[in-house]
């Protein structure tokens, strides 16, 4: 009799375990749904990353590539958002470009979800929210807050020690960090394949200038920065002066020669393209962050960071006003705009003309939502 009772209890516990799985599954599954983006009328074509590298076909690493312009020859620009899906300003800036710009000369290619797999999960023990909503004139638009790394259900197990395609030794989990896997490998693991596909775009589309949009924690030294490959030194310093003139302070950081696998290093080394990486300060990805909340992601307010700033622990000013995502997006937009105009001045034979790009001052004033399509547009 005791035996039967014991089995019953074990059976119930097994059922409980399955039930808990079932109830948490729904939340985890939801994260795989992609939010719809609404490209502007300027869109020339929408490709998949796998059309540049077939090794990505039918993999979770395949992602949309939005192409603008191309009718009139000029400069070719690549803009990458969402290489780290826990850095909202990079992703949202790419989406704003997709939903607004028109290109009359040259070509702009935007990849908003560079690490598509990273958007499908969140990092254990970081306690992040699944996403955030931005108010548009026609209602709220939801955006996913993902993980810095590729989803382990897509790429697993991590090696003990990761030696990236450029030979740098890194801790194993960095094998899932897109911005450590360049220049990628066609037969490597998923993240290396994504990196390789992005290199293929750069080469096949004859990209002249490639911009990688990122964010970093406020306690991190390379923040509010333009990181540049030596190929783009002139462009970066030229742009910095112009950005300062319109009131944006940026640090200028030369891509270190011994830090391999990052976009600003390998894009320049392997494709001779002008490579730039932009960083803004995002408290929601930092180690000091307080309670996970919408206000932390959108308003960028956090008591811990205000306190840390008073003790001189941060590399950006931080007060009770926080650093809202609209300000960070505005910084990215300002930097992109000025990088493009500097590019035009330095390369008059390869001009790029972009229209309807929201200005940073307008975004700061009106908010991001004003420049996003309402959620119901077909």
């Amino acid at each position: 009799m005791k035996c039967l009772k014991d089995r019953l209890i074990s059976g119930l516990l097994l059922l409980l375990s399955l039930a808990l799985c079932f109830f948490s599954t729904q939340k985890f599954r939801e994260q795989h749904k992609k939010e719809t983006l609404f490209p502007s009328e300027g869109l020339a074509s929408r490709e998949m990353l796998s059309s540049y590298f077939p090794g990505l076909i039918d993999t979770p690493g395949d992602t949309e590539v939005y192409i603008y312009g191309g009718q009139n020859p000029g400069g070719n620009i690549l803009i990458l958002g969402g290489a780290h899906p826990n850095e909202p300003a990079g992703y949202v800036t790419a989406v704003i470009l997709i939903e607004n710009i028109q290109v009359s000369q040259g070509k702009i290619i935007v990849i908003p979800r560079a690490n598509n797999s990273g958007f499908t999960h969140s990092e254990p023990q970081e306690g992040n929210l699944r996403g955030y909503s931005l108010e548009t004139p026609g209602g709220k638009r939801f955006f996913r807050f993902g993980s810095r790394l590729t989803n382990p259900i897509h790429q697993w197990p991590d090696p003990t020690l990761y030696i990236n395609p450029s030979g740098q030794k890194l801790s194993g989990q960095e094998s899932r960090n897109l911005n450590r896997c360049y220049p990628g490998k066609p037969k490597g693991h998923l993240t290396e394949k994504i990196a390789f596909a992005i290199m293929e775009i750069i080469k096949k589309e004859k990209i002249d200038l490639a911009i990688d949009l990122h964010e970093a924690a406020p306690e991190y030294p390379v923040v509010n920065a333009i990181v540049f490959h030596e190929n783009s030194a002139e462009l970066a310093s030229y742009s910095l002066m112009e950005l300062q003139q319109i009131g944006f302070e940026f640090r200028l950081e030369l891509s270190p020669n011994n830090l391999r696998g990052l976009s600003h290093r390998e894009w320049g080394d392997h494709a001779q393209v002008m490579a730039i990486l932009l960083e803004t300060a995002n408290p929601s990805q930092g180690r000091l962050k307080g309670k996970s909340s919408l206000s932390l992601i959108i308003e960028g307010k956090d008591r811990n960071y205000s306190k840390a700033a008073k003790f001189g622990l941060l590399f950006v000013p931080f007060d009770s006003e926080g650093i809202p995502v609209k300000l960070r997006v505005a910084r990215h937009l300002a930097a992109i705009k000025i990088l493009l105009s500097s590019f035009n001045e330095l390369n008059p034979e390869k001009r790029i003309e972009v229209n309807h790009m929201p200005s940073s001052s307008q975004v700061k004033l009106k908010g991001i939502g004003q420049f996003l399509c309402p959620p119901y547009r077909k």
Partner: protein
Amino acid sequence: MFIVYHLIVFYLASHFIWYLFRENEFWKRVSVALVLIMFFLRLFLIK
């Protein structure tokens, strides 16, 4: 390697279930049930 690790998870999950029915102490069985949640989720490629 992905498949090998899947098989490892499957092998271990089956053993956990077997152990769940062998063990008599209640809280130890609760421990097994808690650990099993993760193994199921990885086995079904959910998390």
